[in-house]
């Protein structure tokens, strides 16, 4: 099974649909990691640092660069969504999420935070493109890492809805609550989904726009749930019906 942009007619009508605004948003999002890498490099150049500090800063440069590169890679992928063919296949969400946690553990460790999986031992399979789904969850996790309180544990949660017809993968963070005004804004945008949603005021929303584009191509959708101590960003995807064929 495969999906292309042409088979899925719902297109975004948000602020990133023209090239210039996408470019500005991408430039804005890349400023932070680049500015941090620059400050770390200048501090290393200064030379008046201990071996432990040097080791830690070099590690931070690597991890920050990787975060920036993930964004550029996602942007490239979005730009090619129109032309590409994406294979959809039954995926074990637990295995995928465990792989993601292993991939992200270095940056979480460097930030003194934990990430863990909340799931049944044998969750239902879902239908998705493995690479795109992986990018969505990493995108949510990057966002959560940045906004979560120090030393908090982030959760990747797997659940099912609609009597098992829909699988929800969510990333729960524990940090400042989304304000009422921001939540109303999110709800109004989600009500006329698909629309890009902005997670937090300081974000251009580009990361979530990318995630929603990837979800869209897999006939899924993204959303957000506010909690008093953080938020859960999730993607809903169709459950695999292969069990019903047995």
């Amino acid at each position, binding site marked *: 099974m495969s999906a292309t942009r042409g088979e899925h007619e719902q297109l975004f009508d948000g602020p990133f649909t023209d090239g210039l605004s996408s470019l500005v948003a991408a430039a804005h999002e890349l400023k932070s990691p680049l500015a941090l890498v620059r*400050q770390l490099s*200048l501090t290393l150049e200064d030379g008046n640092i201990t071996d432990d500090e040097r080791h830690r800063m070099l590690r931070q440069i690597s991890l920050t660069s990787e975060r920036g590169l993930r964004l550029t890679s996602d942007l490239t992928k979005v730009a090619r969504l129109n032309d590409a063919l994406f294979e959809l296949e039954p995926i074990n969400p637990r295995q995928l999420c465990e792989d993601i946690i292993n991939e992200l553990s270095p940056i979480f460790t460097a930030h003194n935070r934990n990430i863990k999986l909340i799931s049944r031992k044998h969750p239902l399979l879902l239908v998705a493109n493995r690479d795109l789904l992986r990018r969505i969850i990493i995108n949510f996790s990057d966002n959560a890492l*940045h906004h979560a309180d120090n030393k908090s544990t982030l959760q990747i949660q797997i659940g099912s809805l609609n009597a098992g017809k829909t699988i929800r993968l969510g990333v729960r963070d524990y940090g400042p609550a989304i304000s009422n005004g921001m939540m109303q804004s999110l709800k109004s945008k989600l009500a006329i989904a698909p629309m890009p949603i902005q997670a937090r005021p300081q*974000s251009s929303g580009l990361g979530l726009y990318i995630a929603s584009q990837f979800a869209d191509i897999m006939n899924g959708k993204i959303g957000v749930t506010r909690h008093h101590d953080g938020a859960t960003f999730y993607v809903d995807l169709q459950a695999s019906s292969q069990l019903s064929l047995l």
Partner: protein
Amino acid sequence: MSVRSVLVVEDDEWLAQLHARVLNTAGYKTQIAPNALVAIQMIDDELPDVIVLDVLLTGSTAFALLHELQSYGDTGDIPIILCTNLASDLSVKDLAPYGVRLIIDKTTMKPNDLIESIREII
């Protein structure tokens, strides 16, 4: 002379640590707040001599914090240095009524610019 205190309001943990390192080395007492709410709590506990403030923060933006600080006589007088990626879009003249004395561009600053800026205003 007593040790001057600086409150760094910055949601990028690693950048905040770099700022604190530079400030501590220069002899300032430094505290870090990752968002505006924590900043208000810290200011409640102890008035800093200077606030170094990022603009795009988790939760409320810096402007909400600036409004809050201006609502009280004692906090309204704290000099503020904005340290932001948006420096090119902001002007000290426009923000002076909110206590902003200087704006540092994160994308071009050098680590010691923080020290020179603080010395310039206190």
